């Protein structure tokens, strides 16, 4: 029997209003000039998924090229230069145009004000501006492909990027610079919103944990991104004026660039993973029908991950020529990351203990997340430990590790969140069967693609390699086949979700029995979110039967 999902504290739906945020003012111009966070969220969703598609296609092509030592793709020979451009583009698009903006820009933009019981984000016009800055950055990035592409890797290491590469490095770095501003503006908006627009009765510790995760993300966005911005400007100026900052030819220091770059880009890793953790903190209690275990521990662990992220950047540089003392200190600090990450996982697991677990599609993704994040996190220990890092850094082991964290964890959570909030965004329920098939394919495809890369890496296969030793060929072939399953799973996700749009709205206000405020308005919500200003009467994730509930932990 299909379980009936009610939270116990929310009975009955509003009659479905005729007008909602989707069918009111539907001209293209209305969409382009909208300041409604829900519409901006959808536009971000379309934008970032578009680049996910492009980046994903590039990944599939790279895997095809690597499948055999002949380096052909559908019979077309691909040379080393082409290959280098492809992997650079794959990295840059996935990092700057997909993962960083995806969850904050799309899902969070849509959900955050609803969860807080607010009518909009603090600065709606700024929100729209940040979307257009994103579009401008995206156009700039795409144009750099047209004017010669980039072959430096997404890390733009000097002096290759500043003097040796003859490609469009300047325009790609300027694109990343512009995209950084979009990220800053989004973070700024969320911080102000969380501080000042919480519903009456909602204290800091009554906020859903998703908000805690996104608040921590926003803090990193505003603190780290300006440093990347100025670093990329310095790089562009150095390239134009031949100034000695990073390039030894003019008296600069290439290791300094790496310090500057990772000072941003390590926290940026947490801009990518914290939103994933934030989503999981919603999915697990909702589908376990049980209050979250260790609310404060999870909230504090998000904040502490954000803070720790600023003091561990040197672990990217153990063999880069920084001092040996720095290596030792950064290794010690790096282990601190394990503690809050572990705390989250243990709390999620304990939340499931003695729950009443409804295995709907989003929960499937949450379980997939727990397993994939375990692999991603545990392989991080190999890399944080000094002696093993020396052997493993700059190999496929690192490639596999960060794909497990960035893709296996963040993208899994993103897909779970997308399925979870899809009924709220569109008013449509999707096919559960289709959703579960897509999750299974995703899980199998992902592991098939990246587990061989761990083995290759620890056996000594360096990353960013066009040619490889014959002994690695079977692993590459296996990984390539896995990537096809992965690609298939994403097309399945798209098919399942798009198919749901063909029928009339059928989603109830609260299809999953969620307790947070976004489920208290209609699906899809009206333009101003709530019919009445919601007032928080109970803490989030309170699944006690009515009458026994109360506020306060």
């Amino acid at each position, binding site marked *: 029997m299909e379980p*009936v999902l009610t939270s116990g504290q929310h009975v009955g739906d509003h009659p479905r209003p005729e007008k909602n945020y989707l069918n009111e003012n539907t001209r293209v111009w209305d969409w382009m000039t909208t300041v409604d966070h829900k519409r901006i969220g959808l536009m971000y969703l379309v934008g970032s998924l578009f680049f996910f598609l492009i980046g994903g296609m590039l990944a599939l092509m790279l895997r095809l090229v690597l499948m055999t030592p002949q380096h052909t793709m559908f019979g077309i020979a691909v040379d*080393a230069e082409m290959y*280098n451009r492809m992997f650079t583009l794959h990295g840059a698009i996935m990092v700057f145009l997909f993962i960083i903006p995806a969850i904050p820009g799309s899902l969070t933009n849509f959900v955050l004000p609803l969860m807080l019981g607010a009518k909009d984000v603090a600065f709606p016009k700024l929100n729209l501006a940040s979307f257009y800055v994103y579009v401008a950055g995206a156009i700039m990035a795409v144009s750099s492909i047209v004017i010669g592409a980039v*072959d*430096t890797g997404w890390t733009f*290491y000097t*002096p*290759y990027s500043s003097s*040796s590469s003859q490609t469009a490095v300047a325009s790609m770095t300027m694109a990343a610079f512009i995209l950084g501003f979009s990220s800053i503006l989004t973070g700024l908006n969320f911080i102000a919103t969380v501080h000042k627009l919480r519903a009456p009765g909602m204290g800091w510790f009554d906020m859903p944990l998703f908000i805690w995760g996104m608040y921590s993300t926003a803090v990193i966005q505003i603190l780290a991104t300006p440093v990347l911005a100025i670093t990329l400007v310095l790089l562009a100026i150095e390239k134009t004026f031949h100034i000695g900052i990073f390039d*030894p*030819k003019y008296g600069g220091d290439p290791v300094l660039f790496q310090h500057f770059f990772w000072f941003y880009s390590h926290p940026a890793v947490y801009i990518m993973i914290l939103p994933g953790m934030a989503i999981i903190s919603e999915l697990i209690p909702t589908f376990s029908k*049980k*209050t979250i*275990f*260790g*609310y404060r521990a999870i909230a504090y662990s998000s904040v502490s991950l954000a803070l720790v992220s600023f003091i561990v950047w040197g672990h990217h540089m153990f*063999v*880069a*020529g920084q001092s*040996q003392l720095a290596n*030792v200190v950064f*290794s*010690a600090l790096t*282990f601190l990351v*394990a*503690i809050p990450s572990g*705390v989250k996982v243990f709390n999620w697991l*304990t939340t499931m203990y*003695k*729950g*009443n*677990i*409804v*295995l709907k599609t989003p*929960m499937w993704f949450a*379980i997939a997340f*727990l*397993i994939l994040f*375990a692999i991603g996190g545990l392989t991080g*220990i*190999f890399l*944080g430990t*000094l*002696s*093993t*890092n020396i052997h493993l*850094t*700059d190999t496929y082991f690192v490639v596999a590790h960060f794909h497990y964290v960035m893709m296996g964890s963040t993208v899994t959570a993103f897909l779970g969140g997308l399925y979870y909030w899809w009924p709220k965004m569109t008013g449509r329920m999707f096919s559960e069967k289709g959703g579960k098939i897509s999750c299974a394919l995703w899980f199998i495809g992902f592991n098939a693609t990246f587990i061989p890369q761990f083995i290759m890496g*620890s*056996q000594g296969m*360096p*990353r*960013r*390699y*066009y*040619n*490889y030793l014959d002994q690695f060929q079977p692993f590459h072939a296996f990984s390539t086949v896995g990537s096809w399953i992965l690609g298939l799973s994403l097309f399945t996700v798209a098919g399942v979700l798009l198919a749901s749009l063909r029928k009339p709205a059928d989603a109830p206000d609260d299809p999953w029995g969620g307790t947070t405020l976004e489920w208290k308005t209609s699906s899809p919500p009206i333009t101003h979110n709530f019919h009445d200003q919601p007032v928080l009467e109970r803490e989030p994730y309170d*699944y006690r*039967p009515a009458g026994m509930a109360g506020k306060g*932990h």
Partner: protein
Amino acid sequence: MNWLTGRFMLPPQGSAFADQVDTTFLGIYWLSVVLFWGITLTTLYFAWRYQYKAGRVTPHQTHNTTLEILWSVIPLLICVGLFFWGLNGYMKYAVAPGDAMEISVTGKQWLWEFTYPDGSKTINDMHVPVNKPVRLVMTSEDVLHDFFVPDMRVKMDVIPGRYTQVWFTPTVLGAHTFTCAEYCGKDHSGMKGIMTVEKQEDFDKFLATGGTEWETYRDSGDWAGWGKLQYERKGCNSCHSVDGTSSKGPTWKGLFGKTETLGTGTTLVVDDAYLQESMLQPNAKVVKGFEPIMPTFQGLLRNHEIKGLVAYIQSLK
């Protein structure tokens, strides 16, 4: 058995240091295996055991301070232990013994050049005596590179304008691959070679004559075969083809005896003297249509190696 112990993850060991790294690696591997299956099986068990049942009331467990402290402190202690384990190995990697033999390494797009204590040089072909510590003093002529020997478990960036060091004691005779592990442009993946670990007497012979194989070739009189070996070892193959295709330099196929037009317009017939000159002063007479980009091999090629190369070119009809 390798599949059981986790050894399958690692390449063969070539140095004493490798064994130490592997012990740490396998320790973390087993810790990870236990934790991974612990987390995964618990998740799956909970999902199965507590599956939805109509009417089931879930307990309202908000937190448990003892548990929270336990699962913060125990991982912290494990991490402290792992940190010191890694530090212990790293200290060995960081400090080279004073009596280590020094070899200078220069990375450039896209080859490795090695200079031995006696001044002799090789390209992409490294020889070291077994059971003797070797210290590499490395620098780059252009962009970042990274010298990585998987079998020795050592790796270090090679940086322009700066010297970096790495050391190891090779313990296993035979060939070990080394590669460039820091992205350096187009032929990054081609920037690799073989490190031959050999007995001290063979190493001494190598320094004197260019290798133990030399004797075999000399005795058999196979000059062309000797030249072919040099073609691969000295990096000639990165610019000159032997199958007629054009690359950065002229192909060697059919080169000997051919009449070439030079950039200056004059013509000449390719003979022994021209080939030898082209190796030692490569940019004196450049064939029309090619850039003067070849580095000089003065000091890099011994006389019997030049002779072998000329014989090899001669054999490519």
